[in-house]
């Protein structure tokens, strides 16, 4: 029988086509529906209390929490702490919207804001946590959570430039250092539309989050020029630096910690934040309304930000935690290269956050980034 079986007559083909058309018509009934079925929301909107009410399931990035932290909580309170992982936020949110029952999730500020807008997060009183006083003032009334009732900060990172000081000289602490001539053909921009457009905006003196089409047009040209100069566009900054492909890399401070742990010559790797502005990113802990044990979840958050636990966790994952204990642990971790340790409170106006909560602005930024990458 050949692939084009003559027995599959025209009539059969016609019928198959008609069936397909009917199916499509059926799909038309989906109009207006979101991809995920709306999930059942609890009627009560009273804030939850930190009290043990069952086992919990964490939905976190992989390798982001010391297993001993979970074990310690489990031993102390006699509940199970289980964990599953996601590898990008879009996938995490999709599963959550489809009704996934997780007790704690780790969104970025922008995703936390959106999830709250959708009514998918439990409300709680941050002050009800016994370790709330240790949280950095940077996280007091953030734009994504003005009343401190949906989020607790987990870790933060700054965006700057990592470079090989044995190959590149004349770095000036500016985003223009990305095109330092010593790095020609061996420079990388992060493959992240916000980080890339963000540094270009800062170079041009615009607001980090500008959505002015004319300003973005200039920033696009900045990126196209950088692209000419670059070796690549990549988020594998750790690997690119370790294997010698990059000598200048737009990078997150956690990456440079990892790089220095992996090479024989850590003193050759430097990191700077830039005077035009220091983008700060944060991962938060939130409790979805689908949580089975929201009380235990809140208690676990309190456990995570307890100073000794925070310190232990930072030593394990290498990311700064903006709470007492975590801050000091990170400072000791990077004492040989203090530039990696960015003091959030001291950043003042230099510390900036990405904030594209207007969908049109977000679409415009994505369009600019696609044009940069595609052309």
């Amino acid at each position, binding site marked *: 029988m050949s692939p*084009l079986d003559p027995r599959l007559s025209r009539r059969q083909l016609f019928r198959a086509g008609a069936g397909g058309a009917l199916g*499509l018509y059926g799909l038309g009934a*989906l109009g207006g529906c979101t991809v995920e079925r709306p999930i059942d929301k609890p009627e009560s909107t009273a804030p939850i209390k930190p009290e043990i009410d069952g086992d919990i399931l964490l939905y976190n990035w992989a390798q982001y929490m010391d297993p001993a932290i979970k074990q310690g909580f489990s031993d102390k309170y006699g509940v199970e702490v289980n964990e599953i992982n996601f590898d*990008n936020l879009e996938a995490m949110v999709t599963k959550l919207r489809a009704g996934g029952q997780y007790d704690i999730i780790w969104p970025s500020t922008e995703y936390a804001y959106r999830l709250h807008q959708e009514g998918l997060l439990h409300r709680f009183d941050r002050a009800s946590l016994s370790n709330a006083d240790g949280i950095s003032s940077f996280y007091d009334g953030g734009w994504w959570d003005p009343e401190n009732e949906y989020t607790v900060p987990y870790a933060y990172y700054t965006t700057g430039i990592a470079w090989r000081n044995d190959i590149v000289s004349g770095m000036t602490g500016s985003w223009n250092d990305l095109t330092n001539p010593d790095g020609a053909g061996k420079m990388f921009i992060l493959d992240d539309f916000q980080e890339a457009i963000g540094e270009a905006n800062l170079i041009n003196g615009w607001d980090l989050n500008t959505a002015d089409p004319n300003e973005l047009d200039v920033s696009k040209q900045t990126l196209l020029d950088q692209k000419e100069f670059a070796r*690549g566009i990549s988020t594998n900054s750790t690997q690119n630096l370790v*294997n010698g*492909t990059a000598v200048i890399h737009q990078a997150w401070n956690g990456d440079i910690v990892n790089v220095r742990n992996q090479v024989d010559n850590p003193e050759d790797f430097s990191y700077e934040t830039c005077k035009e502005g220091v983008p700060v990113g944060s991962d938060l802990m939130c409790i979805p309304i689908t949580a089975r044990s929201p009380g235990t979840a809140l208690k676990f958050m309190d456990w995570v930000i307890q100073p000794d636990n925070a310190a232990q966790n930072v030593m394990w994952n290498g990311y700064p935690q903006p709470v007492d204990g975590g801050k000091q642990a990170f400072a000791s971790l990077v004492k040989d290269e203090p530039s990696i340790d960015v003091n959030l409170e001291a950043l003042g106006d230099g510390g900036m956050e990405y904030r594209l909560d207007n*969908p049109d602005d*977000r679409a415009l930024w994505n369009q600019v980034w696609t044009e940069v990458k595609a052309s």
Partner: protein
Amino acid sequence: MSDRAFWSRFLLPGGLWLLLLFAVPICLVLALSFGYTDDLGRAVYSNTLANYTDAFDPLYIPVLLRSIGYALATAVLCLLLGYPIAYYIARYGGRRKHLLIALLVIPFFVNYLVRTYAWVALLADEGLLNSALKDVGLIDTGIQFVNTPYAVIGGLVYGYLVFMILPIYASLERMDGALIEAGKDLFGKPSRVFLHVTLPQTKQGILAGCVLVFLPAVGDFVSAQLLGGPDTYMVGNLIQDQFFAASNWPFGSALTVVMMLFLSIWMLGYLRSAAREARDPVAAGGV
């Protein structure tokens, strides 16, 4: 019960599987391609054509042409590398034939993504290969292998080579070895025997191999993402970015549908050629 009816029942599990987990998702992608993204970044089904007008933006033409170019180069390289391997194993593999085929297939037990990461470590500026070349004094500074179009094509060849070798091997196995003997008996030089006997006999294997390599290579995103540079952006990367970075599933779906239609044209071409061959091998260039 007729034989046909008897065997047809066993189609049910596979058929259901394909319907539920293949046909339905494809229909959802098709439906979503007429949708939009709401203010909270959620994909919503609708009936807009905007995603399709966007998909035909001239901006994406170079991306598409680049993807086709890389995929064609990949298919040609796979053919040049794969044919002799398939030929050797089929003709001279002897008792070790199955072992050799197994050796070819074993690397493919390892995920493509992991193998591509291994390539990065191997080919980086201070990677294993460059270090070795420096140690033996062949070069002074590292050669730039990664982040080039060549690395992307190399990664694609590495990823899909086995899909070229296996169909060619199968067609060589099916071929009657006596035909080659006959060609030689007619005093054909080995090259002429190959061109006039072996090659036409394995044409369908070659075509199948080319289709199996070319089609997935056009839509590949792993190779360009890990081995590519600033100017190696492929259609697969564009689509992946719509889903995971831009939160624009409807546009990603529209691009997917356009690409599927485009690839179907090539697939149809192959099916027609295969059908012609089956009906009339001589006219189609066979013996």
